[in-house]
C-alpha cells in the first residue's frame, strides 16, 4: 500500500505569507505590515525554497496545500500565480488535492462591488491559480466587536466577499469565528452563529479568544484581570465563556455541522484535510518564514527572522541548516506516543486503540492504562473499546488532562 512505502508516503505542504495590512489587537501570529517591494522579494525567496527542498520529496503525492499568513490575499495575482506554479512544477500535487488559502474580507477585490486597485486579487484570480478551498477570517458579525478586535473590515464587507467567492465558483469555504470577546454576550454570539449558518459555509472554525503575551489585548486583559473601563469592556466571565463554547457546539450540530475537532465544525465530508494531517501526524512540509514541518519522524521549523530568511542562498539543504532552520529534532518513540495522544485527542473521534498498537507495537493500555482509567472514572474521557476520546466536559479542561499523557 502506498502509505507503507516511505518513498510514496503522502505529503501536505504549508506556505507562509507573513504580511498584513495591520495587526489585530489579539494576534500573536508571525505577521507584520511591509511595503510592496519587501513582499515581492519574499515571494521570490519562498519560490527558491520551494524548489530547493523538493529534492527530498520526489515521488511523494501531495494531498493538501495550505497558504496561510498574515494575509495571503494581499498577494498580487502574479505573485500567487508564480507561487502555485512553483508548487506544481516541483511537487506531485494530486488531482483531488485540497488547496486552501486564507483571505481577509476587504482585501479581495469583489467584482462589481467597488473600485479596486488593479493589482488586487479577485476571487476569480484565486480560482485560476488552482485554489479550491477558501478560509475567510470573519471573527464576528457584530461591527462593534470587529472594531474592538482591530479588524480592517466590516460585516457588510464580509457578506460581499462571501457572495463574490460563491459567485466565482468556490464550493468549499471556511469561516473563522471568535467567542469569549470583550463585551460579547451570549446573545451577540448567537446572532453571529445564526447569520453565518444562514450562509451555509461548508466549514466553520469557532475559536475561544486566547489572550496572548505581547499583544495589545495582553496589556489590557493579561493576567486574567478584566479591565472594565468605559473604553475597554470586560471579558466574559468563565462560566459565560464556556457557555458560548457549548452553545456553538449544540447550535452548529443542530444545523448540520459535525463537531470534529475542539474548535472545528464542518458539513459531513468537508473536514479540512490539511489540518487533520497535523492532528493525525501525517507528514507535512512547511515553507516560508517560521513554517513548521514534520517529515520522516523529524520536526523542524524555518527561522522567524525575516533578515536571515532573505539572506539564505538557495542550495539543497540550505533551508535545513542553522541559523535558517530554527529547530530540528528527531522524535523519540516516546515523544511520538505523546504527540499521538495530545494531538489525536483534540479530534472528537480521538485515538484508535488498534491504530496505536499497530504504529507502536504496544497496547495503549500498557502505556496509558492508569491515566485513561482515572479520567474515564471522572467522566473526562470516553473509551468505547475502539477509540479513546475526550467527552464534552473533558474538552473544557483538556490541557490539564493532556499533560498527564506526557511520560516521565
Amino acid at each position, binding site marked *: 500500500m502506498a502509505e507503507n512505502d516511505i518513498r510514496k508516503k503522502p505529503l501536505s505542504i504549508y506556505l507562509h505569507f507573513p504580511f498584513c495590512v495591520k495587526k489585530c489587537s489579539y494576534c500573536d501570529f508571525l505577521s507584520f505590515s511591509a511595503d510592496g517591494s519587501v513582499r515581492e522579494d519574499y515571494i521570490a525567496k519562498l519560490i527558491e525554497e520551494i524548489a530547493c527542498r523538493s529534492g527530498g520529496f520526489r515521488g511523494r503525492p501531495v494531498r493538501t496545500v495550505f497558504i496561510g499568513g498574515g494575509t495571503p490575499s494581499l498577494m498580487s495575482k502574479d505573485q500567487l500565480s508564480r507561487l502555485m506554479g512553483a508548487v506544481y512544477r516541483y511537487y506531485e500535487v494530486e488531482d483531488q488535492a485540497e488547496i486552501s488559502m486564507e483571505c481577509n474580507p476587504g482585501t479581495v477585490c469583489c467584482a462589481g462591488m467597488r473600485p479596486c486597485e488593479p493589482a488586487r486579487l479577485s476571487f476569480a484570480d484565486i480560482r485560476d491559480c488552482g485554489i479550491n478551498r477558501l478560509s475567510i477570517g470573519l471573527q464576528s458579525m457584530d461591527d462593534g466587536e470587529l472594531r474592538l478586535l482591530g479588524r480592517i473590515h466590516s460585516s457588510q464587507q464580509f457578506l460581499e466577499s462571501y457572495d463574490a467567492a460563491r459567485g466565482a465558483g468556490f464550493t468549499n469555504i471556511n469561516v473563522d469565528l471568535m467567542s469569549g470577546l470583550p463585551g460579547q454576550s451570549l446573545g451577540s454570539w448567537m446572532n453571529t452563529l445564526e447569520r453565518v449558518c444562514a450562509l451555509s459555509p461548508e466549514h466553520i472554525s469557532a*475559536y475561544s479568544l486566547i489572550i496572548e503575551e505581547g499583544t495589545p489585548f495582553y496589556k489590557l486583559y493579561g493576567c486574567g484581570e478584566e479591565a472594565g473601563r468605559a473604553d475597554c469592556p470586560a471579558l466574559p466571565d468563565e462560566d459565560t465563556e464556556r457557555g458560548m463554547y457549548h452553545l456553538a457546539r449544540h447550535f452548529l450540530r443542530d444545523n448540520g455541522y459535525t463537531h470534529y475537532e475542539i474548535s472545528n465544525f464542518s458539513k459531513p465530508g468537508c473536514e479540512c484535510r490539511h489540518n487533520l494531517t497535523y492532528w493525525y501526524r501525517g507528514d507535512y512540509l512547511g515553507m516560508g518564514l517560521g513554517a513548521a514541518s514534520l517529515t520522516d519522524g523529524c520536526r523542524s521549523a524555518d527561522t522567524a527572522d525575516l533578515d536571515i530568511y532573505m539572506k539564505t542562498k538557495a542550495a539543497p539543504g540550505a533551508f535545513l541548516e542553522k541559523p535558517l532552520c530554527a529547530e530540528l529534532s528527531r522524535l523519540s518513540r516516546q515523544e511520538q506516543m505523546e504527540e499521538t495522544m495530545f494531538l489525536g485527542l483534540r479530534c472528537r473521534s480521538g485515538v484508535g486503540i488498534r491504530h496505536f498498537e499497530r504504529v507502536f507495537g504496544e497496547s495503549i493500555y500498557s502505556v496509558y492504562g492508569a491515566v485513561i482509567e482515572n479520567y474515564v472514572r471522572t467522566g473526562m474521557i470516553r473509551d468505547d473499546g475502539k477509540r479513546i476520546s475526550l467527552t464534552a466536559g473533558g474538552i473544557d479542561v483538556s490541557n*490539564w488532562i493532556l499533560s498527564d499523557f506526557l511520560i516521565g
Partner: protein
Amino acid sequence: MTDQSRIRNFCIIAHIDHGKSTLADRIIEKTGTLTSREMQEQVLDNMDLERERGITIKSQAVRIVYHADDGKEYIFNLIDTPGHVDFNYEVSRALAACEGAILVVDAAQGVEAQTLANVYMAIDHNLEIMPVINKIDLPSADPDRTVEEIEDIIGIEAHDAPRISAKNGINIEEVLEQIITKIPAPEGDPQAPLKALIFDSLYDPYKGVIAFFRIMDGSIRNGMKVRMMSTGAEFDVVEVGYFGAGRLIPCDELGTGMVGYMSASIKTLQETRVGDTITDALGPCDEALPGYKKVNPMVYCGIFPEDGAKYPDLRDALEKLQLNDASLFFEPETSAALGFGFRCGFLGLLHLEIVTERLEREYALELITTAPSVVYRVYKTNGVMLEISNPSNMPDPSEIEYMEEPIVSAEIMVTTEFIGTIMDLCQERRGVYISIDYIEATRALLKYELPLNEIIYDFFDALKSRSRGYASFDYELKGYQRSKLVKLDILVNREMVDALSFIVFADSAYDKGRRMCEKLKDEIPRQLFEVPIQAAIGSKIIARETVKALRKDVLAKCYGGDISRKKKLLEKQKEGKKKMRQIGSVEIPKQAFLNVLKLDDE
C-alpha cells in the same frame, strides 16, 4: 610569659546600636593592632551575615598590646559579645571570661531596656563596670543627663566616664587608660592545675573544632593532653594561640589570665560546648567552673528540606551550626504534608531567623519552615503532664484537663507620647499590666506580663512601628500560666494537613481559622473538582472557604506551527503538578505552605 598583672580581660556591653562595635574598632585601631588600611569597618563582625545586618551574633575575641602612659606594656583581651536579648547565654559565658565590662551608652538615647539587662548580668558576674558615654558628636547628645541616668538607674559612678565619639575617634585614649586603672588584672593561680572556661567554639574544616577559652588557673601548652570536664572526652592539643584581629596567631603556651584558642583534632561536633571547663587530663582540677548549663529554647519551628533527598544535607548543616551555637536545639520530625525534617528550638526569633538564613545561605539549602511555636504544658485527665511544642503531639481534647502557656515579664522603654499606643498593643497581645515608672519627664519604663506566643513573631516590629522606632524591649521567661488553648486544624478536601495545625488561644481561634482558610483559598490552584478548605477545632468546623473547580483549561488552536510550543506548555504543566505536594487527592504547591504559615502583617 607576660606578667599577669599587666593583663586586662574585658568585654563591651551596650544596647543595640549604641556603638559597641565601633568602639571596638577604634580600640583596635588606636593600639595599632591593625593599620588603618587593614581596617574593615567593624572588623570583629567577620561573618557576612553579621556585617550585613550590622549586629553581632558570635563572640569573637582579640588580643591587643597597649603601650600605656606609665610606659609599661599591657595585654588587653577584648571579647566581643552579642547584643541581642536572644543570646543571653552566649553573653553570659563571654562575661564569665572577663574581669570588667565597658558599658557604652549613647549620649542621645540614654539608658535603654537592654542596657539594663546586660548591666545586671555583668554585675551578677562580679564584673567591674566602666561606663563610657558615646556619640557626643550628635547634636542631640546630652552627656550630663546620660551620666545622671547611669548613676540613678544603674547605680554606678559615671562622673569621670570618658565622653567619646567612637565614630570620629574622639577621646579613645582616655578609654584605654581607664581600662588599666578601673578594670582589675585577672587573679588565678599559675601553679594550680589547668582550669579554662570555653566561651566560644568554631569548626574549621582543616583543624576541626577550635575552642576559645579564658584560663582561670594554670597554663596550657602545645602537645599536652586535656580533658573536657562535662563529657570527660580527652584530646592532645595540636595548636594553641591567641587572636589578632580576624586571624589566629599560634604560640607555644598560654598562661593564667590569658584568652586564647586551641585546636586538638576534635572531629566530632558534640564534644566542645560553650561553658565547659578544659583541664589537664594528667592532673585535672577538682571542680569544673560553675555556670555551665544547657539552655532552654524559647521558640520552636519545623524545618523541612524542599527536596526530600536533601534531608541528610540538612541534618549535617544543623549539626555544624550547632557546634558554634550551643543553644540551637533540633530533633527529627515527620509530617505527612512535608516529609522528613526537624523540629528546632531557638533562644528567640532573631536566633531563628539567623539560623534559617545561615542554612539557606552557607549550606545552600532550600527550606520550608513552619510557623514558630512555643512549648505548652498539657495536663491530662489521668494526671500526666506533657510538654508539647508540636501541635501534632497534642492528645485528644477529651483527655485534657487543662493547659498552660509560657509567660514572660517584659520591660518596655518608651517615650511618653507613645505610652498609650504601646499599652494598647500589649492589651491586644493579652498582656497584663504590672507597672509604669517614669524615668524622666519624657520616658517611661512599662512592665507587662505577656504570653510568649503573642510576642514571638511580630511584636517587636509592631512595637517599633507604633513608637516610630523609639521603643525598646526586653523580656525573660517568668513561668507557666493556665490558659484556654485549643488546637486548630486545617482540612483540605476534608483531609487534615498536619503541617498547618496550630495551638492557639481559644478566643483567637475563630479569627485565625478564618484568615488561614482565606489565605489558603488564594494559594491552592484549582483542581478538576471543588475543594473545600476548613478550619476545625476537634470535630467542629469553625470556618470554611471553597476553591472552585477548574472550568477552563483548553487550547483553542493547535496547528503545525503551534505543536512545539504546545508540547512545552504541557511539559511545564506536568512539572508544575510534580512540584506540588500531594495531600490526599489535592495538589498543593509548596509556596502555599510558606505563604499561609507566614503570619500576617498587622
